[in-house]
């Protein structure tokens, strides 16, 4: 029997934080590297614009995780419309699937990059389900 390495943590991440444009790169922590170090998987959100069907497809996946013992967090970017999270559309889609929308952590570009990286790493390290929920699912 092989072991399974999954981290049981999933982050919703805006397009701009998955693929930061050059003008923002020096002003942001490396969010993918932070998620990798924290053992999080990524669900990439689309760029600004109308993506009704894709957001519904993403909501299906997020709700599936939330209903089966995975810790979900949303990492937004301050200054992007809706912090890049499509929250006005995504939050109702999640509620319709029986899920409370996940915790949002907003990254700030241009402030102290090291401090922003530490804020993010700290959030990722402590974010999890209650122990009894972990024990129920993660066997």
């Amino acid at each position: 029997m092989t072991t399974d390495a999954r981290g049981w943590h999933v982050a919703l991440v805006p397009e701009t934080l998955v693929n930061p444009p050059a003008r923002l790169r020096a002003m942001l922590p490396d969010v993918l590297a932070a998620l990798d170090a924290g053992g999080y998987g990524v669900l990439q959100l689309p760029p600004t614009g109308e993506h009704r069907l894709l957001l519904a497809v993403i909501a299906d996946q997020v709700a599936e995780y939330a209903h089966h013992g995975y810790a979900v967090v949303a990492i937004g970017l301050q200054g992007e419309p809706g912090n890049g999270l499509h929250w006005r559309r995504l939050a109702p889609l999640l509620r319709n699937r029986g899920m409370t929308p996940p915790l949002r952590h907003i990254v700030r570009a241009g402030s102290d990059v090291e401090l922003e990286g530490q804020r993010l790493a700290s959030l990722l390290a402590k974010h999890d389900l209650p122990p009894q929920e972990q024990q129920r699912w993660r066997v």
Partner: protein
Amino acid sequence: MDEDSAPRKVALVANCLLNQNAKVCEGARYRGLVSPVVEALRSRGYLLQQLPCPELAFAGVRRWWAVYEQYDTPAYRAHCRRLAVAIAPLIERHLRRGDEVILIGLDGSPSTGVRFTSSKPDWGGRPNRPEDDWEIVPRRGIWIEELEAELARRGLPPLPATGWALDMGRFDEAGSRADLEAFLDHRQGEPARHPGSSEPL
């Protein structure tokens, strides 16, 4: 030409290459990101575009292992077409602006295999098959077949594609990485752009 209008390199990546939680039980080899794939792509200047996971959204995170033939049903193909219709506009936008677009799937997967998928026509019923009781055959997985069909319906060219060999029975990370890097560095032929033009439409 500024950054926003210059052609870019874009890698469509299988959902589980950014999120190993999407794998079937016992299938995750990493906690979250498949970091060798992400590093190989980012270090070469590729933007990442994650594809939806068709199996997770269809059969759930607690699904059984399955082979190509079990997923080769009208309902699953219709589900994959819905996902393809959802993601295709983003891919089409890249191609029409002249970006180079490649596809990195998951070889051995019944859904996301590119060069290889898993096959065993007699699988079914009680899930108690012995370990490794399936075959690896050279063909696309169901999801990749339906995604490519949707792109073709839109008049878009075939994408250069390969697979990270995670589901081939014996996972060899170093070999898989060398294989991926060879694909990225020595690809034959022109990158996928819209037919007849190297310029955005």
